[in-house]
């Protein structure tokens, strides 16, 4: 039925009871033909009238929904073809590469070869990078655990040595200048202690050379406090003050030689658990004293901290002392 404008109108029958707004797309009657041959379905104009029943909230839209929807649909379909096409993949039989198919692709080469390897290349690179990162993380973790273990071992060793508590008790000995020295004189300094005797064939000179070298290495670092080397004789019978003075002048200038009575040396040897035993005397009354070959490290509080045997080189001993100094500063200062 036509109204006064010649348009057909349909009215929305409100089903819910709310006031519905009707919008009608009015097309003048002259343009309406009853039948329109070859009229594509999508064309809006073929439909004589269109009544849009909208709920009040949506009435602000000016354009008829269908028209915009049609346009949107068209745009959407175009976009979908453009974007979704690369995702259309099919694996051609007999080949090991993924082949993507772009129905509307412009490039001829793509169409002719049918191969597209952009995505697998990117994926391979990311795979490789992911593997590298994971490998680096694993190595880092292993290294950290290794360091922690070393640290724990060091702490455990230090605890054990502290428990031994070697070198307890004081001493009162004569140094190579004849001056009397006690343990307190050396407190505040790191001390490297070596027990030997002046008639020693080769071992004592080697060890004292090593100690001198260690002290020299550590002297070069100004941040560290100077280490005091001490040589104590296990042969007090022959090694008096003069002999000690003559002997140690061949070594580091700061080296102090200590000697005393047989009783004093015996007590000191017990405190440090130093073994020494006088060998058989020959016709010249010469003899060799068998003794433990160990260098002792005492910290500034006079406490036994570490020991080094013949196998340790001067570099290794210097490194160990450096780390003890660092720990000492951290704990007690």
């Amino acid at each position, binding site marked *: 039925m036509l109204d006064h404008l010649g348009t057909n109108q349909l009215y929305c029958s409100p089903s819910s009871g709310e006031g519905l707004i009707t919008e009608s797309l009015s097309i003048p009657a002259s343009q309406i033909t009853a039948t329109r041959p070859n009229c594509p379905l999508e064309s809006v104009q073929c439909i004589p009238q269109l009544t849009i029943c909208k709920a009040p909230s949506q009435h602000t839209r000016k354009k008829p929904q269908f028209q915009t929807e049609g346009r949107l649909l068209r745009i959407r379909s175009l976009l979908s073809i453009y974007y979704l096409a690369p995702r259309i993949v099919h694996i051609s039989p007999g080949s090991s590469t993924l082949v993507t198919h772009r129905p509307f692709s412009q490039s001829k080469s793509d169409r002719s070869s049918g191969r597209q390897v952009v995505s697998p290349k990117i994926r391979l690179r990311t795979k490789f990078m992911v593997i590298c990162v994971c490998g680096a993380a694993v190595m880092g973790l292993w290294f950290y655990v290794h360091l922690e273990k070393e640290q724990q071992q060091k702490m455990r060793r230090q605890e054990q040595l502290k428990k031994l508590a070697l070198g307890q008790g004081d001493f009162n000995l004569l140094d190579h200048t004849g001056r009397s020295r006690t343990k307190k004189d050396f407190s505040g300094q790191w001390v490297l202690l070596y027990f030997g005797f*002046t008639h020693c*064939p*080769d071992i004592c000179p080697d060890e004292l050379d090593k100690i001198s070298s260690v002290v020299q290495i550590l002297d070069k670092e100004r941040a560290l406090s100077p280490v005091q080397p001490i040589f104590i004789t296990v042969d007090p019978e022959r090694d008096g003050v003069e*002999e000690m003075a003559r002997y140690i002048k*061949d070594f580091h200038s700061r080296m102090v030689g200590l000697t005393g009575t047989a009783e004093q040396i015996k007590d000191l040897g017990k405190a440090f658990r130093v073994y020494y035993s006088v*060998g058989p005397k*020959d016709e010249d009354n*010469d003899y*060799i004293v068998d003794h433990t070959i160990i260098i002792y490290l005492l910290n500034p509080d006079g406490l036994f901290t570490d020991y080094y045997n013949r196998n340790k080189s001067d570099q290794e001993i210097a490194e160990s002392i450096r780390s003890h100094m660092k720990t000492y500063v951290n704990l007690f200062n």
Partner: protein
Amino acid sequence: MTAPTAQERKTCWGARDRYWQCLDESNKDSSECRKLRTVFEGSCPQQWINYFDKRRDYLKYKEKMQREGFQPPENVTKL
């Protein structure tokens, strides 16, 4: 008797090294080595010579152990 000085020590060690080198290179009873032995005995105190001789025996034994491995003597009865 005073202890050898640093210089005396070095002389003694040099003589010992030359003597040991001769022993390593040639036969033990060669006249060359006997001469070096005399020099060695002149440079070092007697105690040191005894000590170095024992040391050499020990070093040779150690070398033999490392080369051949330990072989217990034959007429040792097991407990």
